[in-house]
């Protein structure tokens, strides 16, 4: 085992790459839960984002249309969740889980119908990497961040923007108020329903951007169930990050680093003993369980998180 394997530039580059889809899902979760709606359909939003991004990329050969389609697909799935949990006041976990199953079934079926056994075409338009050529000469930094995908940078920008939005703007104050005490917010004239719809739709679009990153930015193809639970890991990162965008990014980077290590330590030995990489690969998930159970970084959910809200009066 060498330092290179632990903190080399390529490990850091991989960390950022692997953290991005998780961070986007975590951002989605943060925005939704800050308004009081638990959205575990993020996994599904991500998956339909992956798929419909690829389909439109294939048909239109226009990356902008493809991205728009990905976001729209994720947003529509989230809209179903919003309707079920806000308007119908259904159980948010049941609705979210049902939509995840729907997303998996739908994409798997359509994938088979449209691309059969040959798979998606290999000449798909893709979201390009951003080559920061001025960093080329700088050791370490150039390799670590010089060739990241555009969506990685967009994601980082979103983290900063949403952090400011939630905690420094009027709309952000109302957004958090609705997630903490919707009745109090309503008595001072805040429209709880509208706020929550906006939040759930935004969360679907954010997760779908993470999906588009996976299919259009990295893999340049679609395979069934390719999100592999990243939407759920994103929810863990949200909790780990204490329901703040910056915290969510930090947690996602830890998970991403765990993933990156399990690749870079492949075949590494310590004192002659081979590292059990497969076991190391489970580290992010163990961290997840600890985070969810509250053992790591005790954090408090918004008080009205997951509770359906019924408007008072109207009698």
């Amino acid at each position: 085992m060498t330092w290179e394997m632990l903190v080399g530039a390529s490990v850091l580059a991989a960390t950022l790459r692997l953290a991005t889809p998780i961070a986007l899902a975590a951002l989605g979760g943060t925005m939704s839960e800050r308004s009081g709606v638990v959205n575990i359909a993020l996994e599904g939003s991500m998956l339909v984002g992956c798929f419909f991004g690829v389909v439109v990329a294939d048909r239109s050969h226009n990356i902008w249309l493809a991205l728009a389609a990905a976001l729209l697909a994720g947003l529509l799935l989230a809209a179903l969740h919003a309707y079920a949990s806000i308007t119908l006041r259904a159980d948010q976990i049941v609705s979210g889980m049902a939509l995840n199953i729907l997303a998996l079934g739908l994409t798997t079926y359509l994938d088979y119908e449209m691309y059969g056994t040959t798979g998606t075409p290999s000449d798909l338009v893709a979201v390009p990497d951003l080559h920061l050529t001025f960093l080329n000469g700088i050791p370490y930094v150039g390799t670590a961040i010089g060739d990241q995908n555009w969506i990685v940078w967009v994601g980082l920008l979103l983290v900063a923007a949403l952090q400011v939005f939630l905690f420094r703007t009027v709309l952000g104050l109302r957004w958090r108020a609705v997630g903490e005490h919707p009745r109090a917010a309503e008595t001072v004239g805040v429209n709880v329903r509208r706020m929550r719809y906006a939040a759930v739709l935004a969360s679907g679009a954010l997760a779908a951007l993470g999906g588009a990153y996976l299919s259009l930015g990295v893999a340049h193809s679609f395979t069934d169930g390719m999100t592999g639970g990243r939407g759920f890991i994103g929810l863990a990162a949200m909790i780990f990050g204490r329901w703040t965008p910056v915290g969510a990014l930090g947690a996602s980077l830890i998970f991403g680093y765990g993933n990156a290590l399990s690749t870079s330590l492949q075949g590494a030995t310590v004192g002659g003993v081979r590292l059990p990489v497969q076991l190391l690969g489970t580290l992010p998930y163990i961290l997840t369980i600890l985070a969810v159970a509250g053992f790591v970084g005790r954090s408090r959910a918004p008080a009205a998180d997951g509770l359906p809200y019924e408007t008072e009066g109207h009698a």
Partner: protein
Amino acid sequence: MSASPPIVEMRGVVKRFGDLVALDGADLVVQEREIHALIGENGAGKSTLMNVLYGLYRPDAGTIRLRGQEVRLRSPRDAIASGIGMIHQHFMLIPPLTVAENVVLGDERSGPMLGERRLAARVRELEDRFHISVDPETKVEDLPLGLQQRVEILKVLYRGSELLIFDEPTAVLTPQEVDELFVIVRQLRDEGKTVIFITHKLREVFAVTDRITVLRDGRNAGNLLTKATNASEIARLMVGRDLKPPAARTPVQSSGTALEIRGLQAKSDRGAEALKGIDLTVNAGEILGIAGVSGNGQSELAECILGLHEPTAGTILIGGADIAHDDPKRTRERGVAYVPEDRRAEGLVLAFTVADNFILGKQDHAPFSHRGVLDSDVISANGDRLAKEFDVRPPNARAIVGNLSGGNQQKVVLGRELSEQPKLIVVNQPTRGLDIGSTEYVWERLLEQRARGCAVLLVSSELDEIRALSDRIAVMFEGRLVATLPAAEATEERLGLLMAGHTEGAPA
């Protein structure tokens, strides 16, 4: 009489909920710059009438005039725009936000960005104008309840309300906080505001209001000048009959110690020191009142005795045996009954029938079950008998408990707990939220148990209740009993000071 039209004139207001008539032609006339009491029993329609005025309910009939102009208030937004503000009984505050954020929420009057410092300055200006002081940059969750209420008042003032509705504002306050609230309310009047003060406590009516409207069964039962009336007249108007005089107190028929607690310590659910060494005894045939502001360890004390909370040190002796670490089932088998603080969450299963609630905890033995199978005939006969004996209304043991009124729910709890001749009863806030009639009933039942020779540990934050029932009164403050007094020496003022932690001059 002033020549200008009254600020509020509600006439013939009717409001039905299904078959229930909540308001049956209620009138309310409030003059500008007065403090107007709206008083009545639970269910008399006070809250419904105020919710109509605040735009939460649409009346089925009747008119509302504000300063002579007829208005239709379709939502709180309309009411706020018409200069009406409500200080809710359950605070409508968001704990993790700051005072300033809570005050301006929904009407921020800034650009898209919040600008915390500007907000705080604006709130401070408002505070100076109305002589209300609370730090705008503190988080609400770090404030005591009395200060949280000031935030509610600031919210309403910030929106320019001319008429402030206080919905039972003193329920959660210490006596000192109540006095401070009265000072603020008077200042508001002197600044030209009008106040409607909803309450069912007569003392408050006399302390702070100018005029009184009494509601009973959704109608006006009286319209009085505070200066020209007295407590018994108002009570009679509220209840519709004369109140029974308090039962004559017999001296304690002491027959030994029923409960002895030594050096009891416990942590709260959040891990803080909740009990810091409690020593007390309760004798058979005696009511020991535990006075104190909620949250000073009273609930932990009650729960430790029942075995619902694990003490970290100390002993709890009943009949010579230490039960500090027994579970509730074993403790109950020793003749301990328990009326918990929150009857809806801890005292009852709301979705069950009255009859089923009567046998909770007794379901696993005869006569209610045999070899694990419930005997529904016995359960139902027992339900009918207890429902009658404890005056549950309607007297239907098959009714779902969640549909009963608070007073009748409490009767179900009492029926279950008192029907088996307990030796010790632990009661926590037994009349919270109950109206005068139900309160009277609960008190009578507790005094009856005392006369029977049962020991009663009464936890209450209502001083009236503590003083009406207790033989001795212990005051709890921050996990300690700061004083124990014979009831005769416990004046309200003295108790109030002790409850606030002032122990000077009090016997140890």
